[in-house]
């Protein structure tokens, strides 16, 4: 069964990386949405309650990852959609801040395709568990 995923990042390179990861193996064949800033990302999240997982970069122009999470919490927008906050060189404090802002999990750069695959598998398993 195909799932939908959203990637929010201001780096074109990172979007290419996600495309590459999702073009192979078990992740191939899913629907992918891409946004290059937090504002666009939030709009896509609002349009797609069916998203299986969102990869949200922390440092972005216009609206950063934490601002997206804060707005989503304030507006209670699709709380069932898990969001992974992606960043470089985070500290434990950042991680705590992200989780308290509503992030489902945290992904530190540099990451490998296997890290993404693990997160997707866990998100899908949790969704299936809560649906059962």
């Amino acid at each position: 069964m195909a799932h939908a995923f959203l990637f929010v990042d201001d780096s074109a390179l990172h979007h290419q990386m996600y495309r590459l990861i999702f073009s192979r193996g078990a992740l191939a064949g899913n629907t992918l949405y891409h946004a290059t800033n937090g504002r666009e990302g939030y709009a896509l999240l609002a349009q797609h309650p069916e998203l299986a997982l969102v990869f949200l970069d922390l440092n972005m122009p216009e609206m950063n990852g934490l601002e997206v999470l804060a707005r989503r919490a304030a507006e209670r927008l699709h709380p069932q959609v898990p969001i992974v906050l992606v960043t470089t060189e985070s500290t434990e404090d950042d991680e705590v801040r992200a989780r308290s802002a509503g992030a489902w999990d945290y992904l530190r750069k540099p990451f490998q395709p296997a890290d993404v695959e693990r997160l997707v598998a866990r998100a899908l398993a949790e969704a299936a568990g809560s649906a059962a």
Partner: protein
Amino acid sequence: MSAEDNAFRELIDEYVVECLPLAERAADALVDVERRRRAGTGGDELLGPVKGWLHTVKGNSAMMGLTPIQESAHALEDLCAALIERGGDDGDALLALLVEGGGLLVDQVRGAAAGGTVEGATGWLARAAAAARGAANGNGKAADRRRSERRRGAEADGAANVVRVDFRRLDTLLADITDTTQEGKKT
């Protein structure tokens, strides 16, 4: 994981397309900061955006397994932070390292397909680390002051006409001079 066996190796062209303009913008801005500081017209407000561009280059390099470039971008970020912390205090030694490192970073990103290793980068990294430590300890202050005094002395001796040129542009400058000289000979 090295760049050769990196999972995103096939995206090396996309990496250069995204990171080269950022590295060039950072290098140009650092030259500008130095020029404006020398002229006494500020320039430190450029360091914030420069840190942002370096941060992106660092993150992307890490993803691509380009460790030498990641390390240079990280060291430049640290030097920017050290310079910002010192405020208006003289930071000539730090700025000279930043300008040199900015040029190196551009060359490294340009040569990313070959791993991003360029001559002089290792030595620069060691000097940058020492300078960042020195700045953190406040030890660089006296050396900078001595350097500033030496510069002021040199300027007083008539060396104020010296202009620093980003070494990436030196080839273009030399080519222009050669063309002009040859045209002058023809006429």
